[in-house]
């Protein structure tokens, strides 16, 4: 099932995948590798990877990606908490955040909507087109 958050911060500019930088945050190396391969194949520029929440916040501040692909379930903190922390840390210039999980979005109830993230994509359905569609 597909779930997309249709409102959020206005991003009126046309999304150009080639120019879009992305940070991948997930504790599973196999998923990070698959995600990098499929996103790069679809024209995204992967600027970095992080395997836990704390590294993700630092990397977001350091790499200043356009988009953070953020796993909901991290070993040290939840993706929602990371989402809030990044927004707080990069006040005004925070990246668009797309939450991913191997679970279904409905497993998290209203948390996704309340997190301030741009949207949610199930891991099994991850593709550059899905990310682009969310950011559009």
């Amino acid at each position: 099932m597909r779930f997309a958050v249709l409102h959020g911060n206005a991003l009126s500019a046309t999304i150009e995948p080639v120019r879009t930088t992305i940070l991948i945050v997930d504790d599973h190396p196999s998923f990070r590798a698959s995600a990098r391969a499929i996103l790069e194949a679809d024209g995204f520029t992967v600027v970095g990877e992080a395997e836990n929440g704390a590294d993700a916040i630092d990397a977001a501040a350091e790499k200043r990606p356009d988009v953070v692909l953020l796993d909901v379930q991290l070993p040290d903190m939840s993706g929602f908490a990371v989402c809030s922390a990044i927004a707080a840390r990069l006040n005004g210039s925070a990246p668009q955040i797309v939450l991913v999980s191997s679970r279904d979005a409905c497993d998290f109830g209203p948390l996704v909507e309340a997190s301030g993230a741009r949207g949610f994509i199930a891991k099994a359905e991850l593709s550059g087109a899905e990310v682009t569609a969310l950011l559009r």
Partner: protein
Amino acid sequence: MRSLRFALAGAAALVEGVVALALIFTNDRNDNPWLTAAVAVTAGLSFVAAGLVALWRRPENTTGFLLSATGYLWFLGALGESNSPWVWTVGFVAGNLAFLAFAALILAYPGGTLGRRDRWLVAVAGLAAIGANTVSALVDDTPVTGCPRCPRSAIAVTDRPGVKDAVVVVATVVIVGVLLAVFAILADRWRRASVAQRRTLRPVFISCGIALSLLLAAVLTDRIDSRAYSAVWVLFLLAFAAVPLTFLAGVLRSRLDRAAASRMLLSLDAGVPLRDALAQALHDPSLEIVYRLDSRDRWVNAEGHRVDEPVASAHRSTTTIERNGRPIAVLVHDPALDAEPELVEFIAAGAGLSLENVRLQADLRSQFLMLETVADTAPSLLVVVDTDGRILNQNRATLEASGLEHEEQIRGRPFWEVFIDPGERQAMIKQFRDAAPDYAPAPYENAFTNARGERLVIEWRSAPITDASGHVTSIVAGGIDITERKQRELQLQRERDITETLMQAIPSLVVVVDSDGVIVDSGVDDTRAGVNNAFRQALGWPDSVVVRRSVLDFIDPADGYPALMAIASAANGVPAQERESHWLCADGSRLVVAWTATPVEDVTGRATSLVLLSGVDVTERKRQEEEIRASRARIVAAADEARRVLERNLHDGAQQRLVALSVSLRLAEAKLEADPDEARKILFAAREELAAALDELRELARGIHPAVLTDRGLQAAVEAAVTRFPLPVELELPDDRLPARVEAAAYYVISEALANIAKYAQASAVHVSVKEHDDQVTVSIADDGIGGADPQGGTGLRGLSDRVAALDGALLVESPEGEGTLVLAVLPALRPAAPAATVTP
């Protein structure tokens, strides 16, 4: 004045007599004036004299009046002696008035009053006598037949002797009738008179009877023969003259009966009973004497029996006898004696001393009768024995207790023969002899079998009776039959023993408290508390601490108020519901006691102020309940945890791999056209990813519940588990399958123990055994590791403990430091019961 009146009345009579004499002696036709003067004047005077005496003595009795009236009127008849026609005529007409007064006198005697019938008779006689003479004098010049020299009637208006004769005949018939009626009345009165009344009536009735008979004869002969009439008339006059004397005697008789008093005194001296002597003297056989007891304001007869206070009635009169101003007796007698009060008083005065004596005797008899009644009606036994122990007297209760029927069967026999069992007689005789000569008062209780075979228990008390010189003459013993009391005491004791045994034997804690909650003593020993052995053993307090202490001192103060309310409720008769409180033990520990407070009832079913607290020590039960509750919570928590772990493992393992696989396939699909080689590489990696995912799922499923355990049993499952175990494991497993729940529990105990050994034990060898015997399965896992395992430390062992407990089994962990660890689980075999043997024909 009274004397003057009587003197004038007497003088008037004398004047009448003188006038009569003058008329008699101046009468020129009287052949025998002396005889007439002697008899007729005597008769008149005797009536007047007797009448006046009677009036003097008894002014209230009309007899005296009628006597004197007869006398005064009698002299009117003397006018008939006159030679003057007018005087003669008055005498002829009014001469019979005296007979009317005479008739009234007779009919009114002795009461002095005329009844209605009597008055009619007198009126008819008067009409006949006066009326006939008046008519005769009116219709005939010579109204008196056979008296040619008599003066002529002064009032004759015609001379018709025939009419006169007819009138005289009618009058004669009427007068004869009246005389016969008077006879009949007198005969009837005599018949109905009492002895005492006849004594009064006798002289009067005799004299009157004679006089009336002669009068009747005179009336009758007057018509036949004048000579005979004269003779009869003289006789009548003689008898008539004597009549007043008999009346007078009747009225005044008591004055004359001093002889009777003398005879009475002589009779008393001769020993005649007082009542008989008085009855004789008063001529009243019906006489009764009732004595008054001063001290008790009661009336008794001579025998001392109580009687009602005597009250006068129409048939019985009473005369109170006083002595020193106090009534001592009442004579109940014939009303006839009321006419002779002097006689009664005279006789009573003569008998005064005797009356007093008899009264005192009656008083004594009355008291004796009362004592005798008291003794006989008393429920207590009373017996008097002489100094030889022989029974002299006894009351009814004693006779009843002896079982004998007649007092002759008791009297004179030794006391112990009747009231002491043979086996104890010698001891009793010795005791009796030893008590001589004082026979001091002594209590004694004995049980014996009486003549009816009844078993009695008597409590005796004896006391000596002494004579004037102080010697004991007899001994009186009073006894109470306490047989029933003894039986009740025995019954009560038995019930008390049963209750005590019950109380001490039951496992419940029992405490008896008063309404304030203070523990009472045992009722027998005031140092022993009213608690039972279960209480003593459970709480450990000595009786000396418990007795007379509030039971609230032994209950947790937090439970004190509801406990006090429960006791107060029961003290008011309302049993309290069961409640649980913490009771304090002597060693400082606490017991949870479920207890109730019940009102203690007495034998009548009424609540006493005592309250029975009975409780059960539920501490162990509570602990077990708590343990079960905790175990259930742990089982639920363990299950939740297992599911959480499972979900995590699925998520982190196979799911991630499948997600990656999905992404890889999507990538391969995208590369298939443009870069087939790259796509092939991706597909190859995806196949390896898929294999790994399958392995993880398989491992996971095995962890949830190994399929081999379900399919091939405990032996195969344990052997499979051991193949993945890094240490050598020696197995000792049953070949037969066990019930699934038992196999699962045993498998998890072994798995968990092996996992712990692998993690912590640092062991070199493990021995696993599963044995079934006596419906129990024993699972043991022993290693040679470092020991020191804490059964409460990890969740793994506690979870196993719960799993085992759920099957009513037990888990034991022995893990001394440095000596390895033994995990031992004992489980019920849970084999279904063997079917009952069937009998085939």
